[in-house]
């Protein structure tokens, strides 16, 4: 592999891995209230109320 090949290989992988890791870290660092809980059971407690997602 030529020196330029190495440079492109390292820079390209560094850009992509850096972007990916920085995004994932930010995702996990955000406050808990921004996350939705995974509802295992539909309790139907909103059936008679207005849809809260509007």
């Amino acid at each position: 592999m030529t020196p330029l090949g190495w440079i492109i290989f390292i820079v390209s992988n560094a850009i992509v891995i850096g972007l990916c890791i920085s995004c994932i870290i930010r995702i996990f660092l955000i406050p808990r209230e921004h996350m939705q809980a995974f509802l295992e059971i539909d309790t139907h407690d909103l059936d008679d109320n207005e849809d809260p997602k509007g």
Partner: protein
Amino acid sequence: MVQNQKSYGPPRESWGSRIGVILAVAGSAVGLGNFLRFPGVAVQNGGGAFLIPYFISFLLLGIPICWVEWTIGRRAGRLGGLSSSPGIFGMLGGGGPVKYVGALGLFIPIVIYMYYVYIESWCLAYAWFSLKGDLILGEGGKHAAFFSQFTSGDQYFDALPETLTTLLPQNFFFFILTFFINFFLIFRGLSRGIERFCKWAMPLLIFSAIFIVIRVLLLGTPDPAHPDQNVVNGLGYMWNPNWSELANPNVWLAACGQIFFSLSVGFGIILTYSSYLTKKDDVVLSGLTASSMNEFCEVCLGGMIIIPAAFIFLGVSQMEGIAKAGTFSIGFVVLPQIFELMPLGQGCGTLFYFLLFLAGITSSISMLQPAIAFIEEGFHVRRSTSMAILGLITLMGTTVVILSPGFTVLGTLDEYASNLGIPLLALFEVIVFIFVIKVKDGVEEAHVGADMRLPRWFPFVITYITPVFLLVILGSWLWSKIHPFFSGGVTVFADPIQSGTILAMVGFFVILVFLVKAAWPRMAKGMQQKQ
């Protein structure tokens, strides 16, 4: 199933967690193209130099359209409670003719699913064959013959007694199995089916790919008689830049195309997925994260498996032919040869084809969701009914793909859905974002609940650069189709199978347009109640 109950129409689904929706979108984007198509395209278009137009296309085309889709989808979902492309476009366009553009968002994923699920079943079959040792065939072109025999639908008629007892039942068995796995996951619903599956499938896929990359990088120089066939030179064949290629416009178009198809933008899938988000959910960082995961799988993993391994075991003399061989040949003819020569190759082959199967299924289940959403919100039927309708349609289409000789039907579906349908839908999405939502309002909409702000260059790029990019891609493809007729020697309807496939696609699209017209009153009523 996580659902929000409504008094009109079927209950509306929603995502269970943020990481779930990101993995689902990333799973939709990561597919066979990341591992099979990207390396071949890169090598043919300048090697390392190809990464320059590739990353520019990612910044100017892929990411902006991705953000547009996430923003449009969530806006239509939270304001109108609609999740299908016709519903989303209809809601944003005030019920006008724009809703018919949404038929493209049904047409593209259904048509692609019809052949994609078949290719996906090959991956499952090859994982099984590799595990059993059936792919250890020796030299002399036996791998090509095996693949041809395995996939040739015309053998149903030519050699029925023999094939019934050997290859074809396996071919059909793996297709049916894959088809039902897809529909089983869809039947489980958005959160319990797609999301839960992607939550374990995506990490498993990535770890499997990392394992195989490490295996390839540790190969060193397996054959002392050929010291030049080593891992460093293999990486060099993939990554050494050929700068002269950057002067070739086709290289830039290839980079645009690769980014476009790789990120799954313009399919209508992200529109549907993001419509299930709430006002509090972020779309900017989530969209960027899903896209960057796809790039990781493509550049960091896909770029380090096939080409270096092929170089090490087959040598530089065969590399040019391999790079031009096409995705199927690389994946199902060349790779089995490489795994046969590789130490621990049987296990690596099984793992690689299983990861391809996972990459395929996380994409194919996403292709079904837009149509399921349309049938349910447009005709108010239960999940089982909508699945039965869609299952019948796609089963009929895939059966034609399987039974047709060669890959003519498959290739025609792929060419028109990918090269015409996807850029066209993406162009319409950008037009809606610019002229219907307005860029300023669209940016504000994206910032609602966002964990990061859109870059300052986004409004300029989405208004002036991205549409031009899309028009150039569409124009160059149309020119490549039209030009041969002017230069002579090409007859319209020369290939009856290809022509029949094109006519069938046109007919299917027209039917979808009429279905959108029939379904709109119910969707509008549901939307009014939501508002």
